[in-house]
């Protein structure tokens, strides 16, 4: 990240003799905001899964997201963060840290359950879409010709269906499944229809990598297609795949929340962060905490995942950093090349994010 010209020389000296993955890890760790975001994601995940427990495993929070409690003090949040010496009531959670809704359900437990569901959908979607997209894109890019044509037309076929439209239909299908299973099912369905962007990017990457000298050399040495793909091309394309996967994750969180809001994804009795906002919409004026807490966690998660993606992009492809501004400021350091536009190729409107041609050899 810190690649202002005066530092470049020193950095290059540091990097001599390190393996590619060490270099990437180092560059990622230098991206302070990305590292902080990663910690935030871990903290939120930990909080969500330990507090109310997951499945049969109980958590440390006494209330469940379904049980009705007696409303206390109009459902006001009891969370207090101002210490006593500053004139507050001391740092404590209280009985209902995020307040209660109209019928007395504990908002904290509900929000935690919503985060669990968001994270589950996020990981399932990203895993399935990444694997599918890499396979389709890889085969199309490596074999070219008829195979490429057929696979890309299939991709086009799915791409003309707008994401939210197909997601809504899939959410409607998934909502038939039971509590707990429905989320996994929803994630799986969304993943099955969410691989097209990944396939296009991976294909472009394979198309350029397969023409490179090291692939020719491997061919000359008699390596099989499988060996060339998995040992030579995939390691070089891994940057694109990982960065696109993080963007898929951010998209999946927003999509799940939107479906929850439309009551088409995760439905009551289970909880979605978007669903919480939609169910309590009528009482926001009297109980604003029912709006802010789920909203804050959606934004926090998405923003953190986006920042991690940004950090990974810089780590995998530092070449863009060379065109980085001379003047370094905190915000420039935060946003890196993607946000400052240096890495964006405006000629490809279909994917505003994560669509850069790169040659990983150039990273050394």
């Amino acid at each position: 990240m810190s690649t202002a010209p005066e530092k470049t020389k020193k950095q290059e000296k540091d990097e001599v003799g390190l393996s590619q993955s060490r270099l990437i890890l180092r560059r990622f760790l230098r991206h302070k905001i990305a590292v902080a975001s990663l910690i935030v994601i871990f903290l939120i995940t930990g909080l969500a899964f330990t507090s109310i427990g997951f499945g049969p495993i109980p958590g440390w929070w006494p209330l469940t997201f379904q049980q009705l409690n007696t409303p206390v003090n109009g459902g006001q949040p009891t969370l207090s963060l101002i210490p006593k010496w500053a004139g507050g009531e001391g740092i404590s959670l209280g009985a209902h840290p995020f307040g209660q809704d109209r019928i007395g359900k504990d908002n904290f437990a509900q929000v935690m359950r919503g985060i669990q569901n968001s994270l589950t959908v996020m990981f399932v979607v990203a895993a399935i879409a990444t694997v599918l997209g890499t396979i389709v894109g890889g085969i199309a890019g490596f074999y070219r010709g008829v195979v490429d044509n057929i696979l890309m037309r299939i991709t086009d076929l799915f791409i003309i269906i707008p994401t939210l439209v197909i997601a809504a239909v899939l959410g409607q299908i998934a909502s038939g499944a039971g509590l707990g299973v429905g989320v996994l099912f929803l994630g799986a369905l969304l993943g099955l229809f969410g691989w097209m962007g990944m396939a296009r990017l991976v294909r472009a990457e394979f198309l350029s990598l397969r023409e490179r000298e090291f692939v020719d050399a491997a061919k000359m040495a008699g390596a099989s297609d499988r060996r060339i793909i998995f040992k030579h091309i995939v390691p070089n394309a891994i940057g694109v795949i990982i960065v696109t996967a993080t963007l898929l994750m951010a998209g999946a969180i927003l999509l799940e929340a939107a479906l929850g809001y439309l009551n088409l994804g995760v439905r009551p009795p289970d909880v979605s962060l978007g669903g919480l906002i939609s169910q309590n919409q009528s009482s926001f004026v009297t109980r604003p905490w029912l709006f802010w807490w789920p909203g804050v966690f959606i934004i926090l998660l998405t923003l953190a995942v986006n920042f991690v993606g940004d950090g990974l992009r810089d780590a995998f492809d530092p070449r863009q950093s060379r065109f980085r501004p001379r003047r370094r400021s905190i915000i420039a350091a935060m946003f890196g090349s993607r946000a400052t536009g240096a890495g964006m190729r405006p000629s490809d409107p279909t994917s505003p994010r994560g669509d850069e041609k790169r040659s990983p050899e150039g990273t050394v």
Partner: protein
Amino acid sequence: MLSFILRRVFVSTLLLLGATFIMYLLTAASGDPLRDLRESREPNRDELIRIRSEQLNLDVPAPLRYFLWLSGAARCLIPFANACDLGVNVRNQQVTELLPIALGSTIQLLTGATLLAIVFGIIIGIVSALRQNTGFDLTVTFLVFLMFSLPSFFIAVLLKEFIAIGFNDFLADPNIPPAVLIGIGLVSGIIWQSIIGGDRRRRITVFAVSALATSGVFALMDAINWFRFPGIGPVALPLIAIGIAILTTTLFAGLQSRRALVTGLIAAALSIATYFSVQGLFDISTAGTIIIVGSILTAAGIAVGFFAGGYDRGVYMRIGGVTAALSFIVIVIDRFMQSWDDYFTDRSINGRPIATVGASTPTLDGDMWILGIDSFTHFLLPTLALVLISLASYTRYVRAGMLEVLNQDYIRTARAKGLGERTVVMRHAFRNSLIPLATFIPVDIAAVVGGAIITEQVFSISGMGQLFIRALSNVDPNPVMAYFVIVAVVVLIANLIADLSYAVLDPRVKAPQ
């Protein structure tokens, strides 16, 4: 070229068939359209089930039912035959009759939002690229990043549940406290000095002037109770028209070109004359009259430019036309504002003008100006939500495109020739930086037809998105399919237009074989 288009149309048709087939099966799998009847306790339940099964062909398995549906939908291709058959919904209404209403309110909502997002996206993107790595640029970048991480319903609900109330309270008793006045001035000063840039002294001057001017204008508006009785009036309107003329001239030709400035000012004078002469006509006019008057005025502006002649006739015509058109928009806004008081005090509005639900006040009655204001107050918040969301991606595209263009050799050449910064930016960089947008805008406009599913849901506007979501929730397959087929066709056409326009605009792109 023709063979390219034909081939694309053929491939698109196949894609459309495949996609509709997939969607049909998924829609069929999304639920049982008979569910509500099966659970009902009506005595004639079996009869109802039989009738609905017949209407929706439910006894045919879904893959075959698709072809029944397709044969009806294919008849839409016969021109002028009016034989379109997209099936019926569960209440036995023809889907083709539901669509025009929904399409109408969606287009009404989204046209304004899309245009505003494009215009502001281009302006902010360009300024942000020209002031790369300044405070302004980094703030814009940060906001764009934030917008990408915000769920759209979050913004919409925020506007609806919190902003609308505050805004209505403000309009009921429009009083700006002095602290807020100073705050507005400071913010505006900070924004302007970061846009104009320059050395410290210039920045401080810009900051002071813009802060004072903004605070002053707001204080004046507050003093004359402008927010309760808004208007532009015969004093401010000529000033605005002249301001538009000077601004347009500055952008297109530079103020040192006397002939351009005179052209702009004549166009402004024409607009001012129009303002005073059409007031009586406006009271009895319809939308058609206004469009005609506006077109005549714009044509007159272009004509002024034409007769100004000279070696740069095209530029003068542009200045005249743009000045006249923008001034006319101000004239129309002024007329709307004249009706504001009648609207505000109407019994069905009751002093709370900013609406959060629906597309119009059902009990309201009045001429087109009153009804126009009614649409405005209803669409204000949803439009704001949509603009905020789509502004982010436009800003980023334009900014990235502009930065790329500014690094090109021909820009360096233009500077080396000694051209002024304005000419370099407006004539050489700006136009080329917009080329990538040619592929982006058609697809975005296609999305307009699909409606803003979430925004429509939040603000209860019965557009296309609502049609889709309602049908999907009620397990009503035919409206879902009709919605999808329309969106898919428009998206495919938009993609074709985008590819073609790119090839036309950018000679480096190989013309399609």
